[in-house]
């Protein structure tokens, strides 16, 4: 059996009963977190434009645009919800991209239309995540090196898997859904820092959905896209061959949601800044450092991150998320990096600007002996009085190795959701997601957050 067929068979044949409790817990946490972030992102300018564009097109009212109180076609809803889930760059990450912002919008949109149960949603999420993570591992750093934004490249495949599962496609159809989805895979890294980056997530959700929907009607596509010479792998990694074990070895043992697992973002900025923020907050609090006393700040980061964090003098909120200079300055000033810190006024504050100039980012590889892959980040703060403090962070807060507590997860959800939900709706939705496996119809959850 070849690679695409093996993966498709795994999607078709795996059922809820075979999924371990740990995987279900992780899946529910990720979905809770993503919904919170989506709600917070729903009023962002990019979200507003997307919603007004989609409203102008109309569409069969099958699925809800979260936070906006109206329904549209499955595809439009997935596009809107995915864009809103990723617009704050506050959504989860794993392996090499943002899985849930691409998978969950496809799942919610189709699940609502089909009245899927909580169990079906969890099952599909875990399988979609499996495909996302395996595509990530198979292409490695390829997409990033070539210049693609990795998230939509994997996301479209994960979304296709989710939709194939909900639509109960057979093995042949699932293979073709992956084949069609691969022809929808796109998204340039160059668009980081613009509204088009979050659009990539929504577009991937939509691209995966349309692939499975068309195939379910009899549409055809290449059935072997994961193994043929000029297929998915070559397009996005330029590699002529690859270790297909990465795609289909040990499927489900363990599930990818368990290992490598999912990192929930503690801060609403690019993930590459998080270790440095952890380190800076540690230093500020432990040594009670005041911004006025700081002479210079040096940050060692993963060399691959230097290009990603390109904005030395960010001009707006979107760019500030990709600015090591800004996040270091604001962490130092406010001792917190949350949604309220990302604000045009704060970004343009002369004092913050002054501090930003003192930040120097250095791409430095420092691998730990154990995993050989975990890259640490070190922050060194030099004071005007000559004192120097330094702190190194290996596993940032929110990673599987240093996870957020249940309370921290709930606090982040509440903090995000209160931007558009009343207290009662927040509590009710929290409860529904934490007990998702008992929900008979996902529509009930969507109603509370719509």
């Amino acid at each position: 059996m070849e690679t695409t067929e093996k993966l498709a068979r795994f999607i078709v044949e795996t059922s809820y009963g075979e999924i371990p409790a740990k995987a279900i817990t992780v899946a529910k946490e990720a979905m809770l977190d993503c919904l919170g972030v989506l709600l917070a992102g729903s009023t962002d300018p990019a979200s507003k434009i997307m919603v007004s564009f989609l409203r102008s097109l109309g569409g069969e009212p099958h699925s809800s645009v979260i936070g906006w109180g109206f329904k549209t076609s499955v595809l439009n809803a997935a596009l809107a919800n995915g864009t809103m889930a990723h617009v704050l760059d506050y959504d989860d990450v794993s392996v090499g991209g943002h899985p849930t912002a691409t998978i969950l919008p496809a799942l919610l949109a189709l699940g609502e239309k089909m009245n899927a149960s909580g169990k079906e949603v969890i099952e599909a999420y875990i399988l979609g995540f499996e495909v996302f993570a395996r595509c990530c591992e198979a292409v490695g750093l390829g997409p990033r090196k070539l210049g693609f934004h990795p998230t939509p490249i994997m996301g479209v495949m994960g979304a296709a898997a989710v939709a194939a599962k909900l639509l109960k496609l057979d093995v042949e159809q699932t293979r073709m859904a992956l084949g069609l989805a691969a022809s929808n895979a796109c998204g340039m890294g160059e668009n980081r820092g613009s509204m088009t980056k979050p659009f990539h997530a929504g577009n991937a959700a939509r691209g995966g959905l349309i692939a499975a929907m068309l195939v379910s009607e009899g549409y055809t596509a290449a059935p072997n896209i994961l193994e043929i010479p000029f297929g998915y792998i070559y397009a996005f990694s330029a590699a002529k061959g690859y270790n297909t074990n990465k795609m289909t070895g040990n499927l489900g043992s363990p599930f990818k949601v368990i290992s490598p697992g999912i990192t929930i973002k503690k801060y609403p900025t690019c993930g590459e800044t998080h270790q440095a923020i952890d380190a800076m907050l540690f230093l500020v609090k432990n040594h009670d450092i005041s911004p006025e006393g700081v002479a210079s700040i040096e940050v060692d980061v993963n060399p691959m991150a230097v290009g990603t964090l390109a904005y030395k003098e960010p001009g707006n909120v979107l760019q500030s998320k990709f600015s090591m200079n800004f996040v270091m300055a604001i962490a130092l000033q406010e001792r917190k990096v949350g949604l309220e810190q990302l604000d045009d006024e704060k970004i343009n504050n002369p004092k913050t600007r002054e501090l930003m100039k003192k930040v120097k980012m250095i791409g430095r590889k420092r691998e730990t002996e154990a995993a050989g892959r975990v890259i640490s980040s070190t922050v060194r703060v030099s004071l005007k009085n000559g004192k120097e403090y330094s702190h190194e962070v290996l596993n940032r807060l929110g990673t599987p190795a240093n996870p957020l507590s249940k309370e921290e997860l709930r606090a982040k959800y509440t903090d995000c959701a209160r931007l558009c939900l009343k207290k009662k709706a927040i509590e009710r939705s929290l409860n529904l997601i934490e007990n998702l496996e008992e929900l008979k119809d996902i529509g009930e959850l969507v109603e509370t957050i719509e």
Partner: protein
Amino acid sequence: MSTVSEKIAEWVQITNYNCIPEEVLDIAKRCILDFVGVTLAGSREETARIVRQYLNEVSGKGESTVIGLGIKAPCTEAALANGTVGHCLDYEDFIQPVSSAGGPHVTAVVLPAALAVAEKTNRTGKELIEAYVLGCEVVYSIGRAVEPGHFLSGWHNTGTHGVFGAAVAASKLLKLNADETTYALGIAGSEASGLRENFGTMTKPFHAGAASAKGVRAAMLARLGFTSAKTIFEGRNGFFNALCKKLEIDELTQNLGKPFGLPQVKLKLYPCCGAALRGIDGTLDLANEYNIKAEEVEEVIVKCHPGAADALTYSKPITALEGKFSIQFPVALALSERGVTLEQFTDDRVREPKIINLMQRVKLVPTPELAATNSQVARAVVEITLKGGKKLAKTVDFPRGTPEKPLSDEQLLQKYRSCASLAISEKATKEMQERLLNLEKVEDIGKLANILIG
């Protein structure tokens, strides 16, 4: 210093209908007429049935016509449908900016975007032509800049280059300013996709439709204030680096419209694989020249280069679809009917005893000497032996429909009519032909589209 997309956007701003030479306008109208006909014919295919079902499922505002399917849809979905259905017979035009790479089906990706937006915004025929020509020019110029490396790496340029052309056409019709057009290109660049491995499946025509819809969406989002990278082509994480092996940037920024590329477009006279075209032409020429009757034919030998022979895999086709990838079937038709037209591509025809008898007399001989070299274009030789022993031969360099041997007006119109009549009435076919041949005089594309709905 302007970026590549800023330079393109600037050119799109300042170039209007009056800047387009008469010859280019004429070719544009021919391509548009041809595409409309082929799409109407395609609307009776299985691909169109699924697209129709999909449109029912998503629904939305009925603002733009879906050709031949009797419905209107949101402009993005209409572009998706028309591009997909228009390309599903592989019977519409294509262009090869670089001869060693397969060319994008330029009209199938640019025109549906232009048509959908022009209808929604009630633009004139001149505005439609203008937007279509500018979109095609950008697709052509990207091809000159990055082919053949891009195509040979596995990308289907109808999708990957086409998305920019569709965005340009939609931007022009939506009257975006230079900044907005630059953003539309930036969004479109993040949507460039389509893998050649999907050739031979319905997903190939989907590339055309999907790219067309993406171009419309990019322009609409940009118009509402959506932002993107201005360095989408040349940036470190941009289109050139990710999807292209070769890059001649001046082709893209210095030579737009100098001269326009559209006259290089190739129209197909026969509804079958491009590899069969020369053999069909040679057979038809001999049959007409010597007034050969089918029953006089003892044997036909078609010699062509091995690449072409490879694509013609069905020596004994039993379905019309197999007949498209066969030399035996269209040559038999050419001898028996003196024409190779869409209505003859039926399963019944392929199985007719008279046709089977003729097909058995046709041999395909792969001949390496006939391949293209630096000094010689690819060619085919047709040799017919009559029952009396008389031998006739014909060499074909350029099939009909190429710029070197363009279709006559009569050929073009006959093709259009045979295609369109499959989906719309004779009256509507005539009326549409009249309007499209005088497209520059049409005042409102919205009213024109009403005839196309089928």
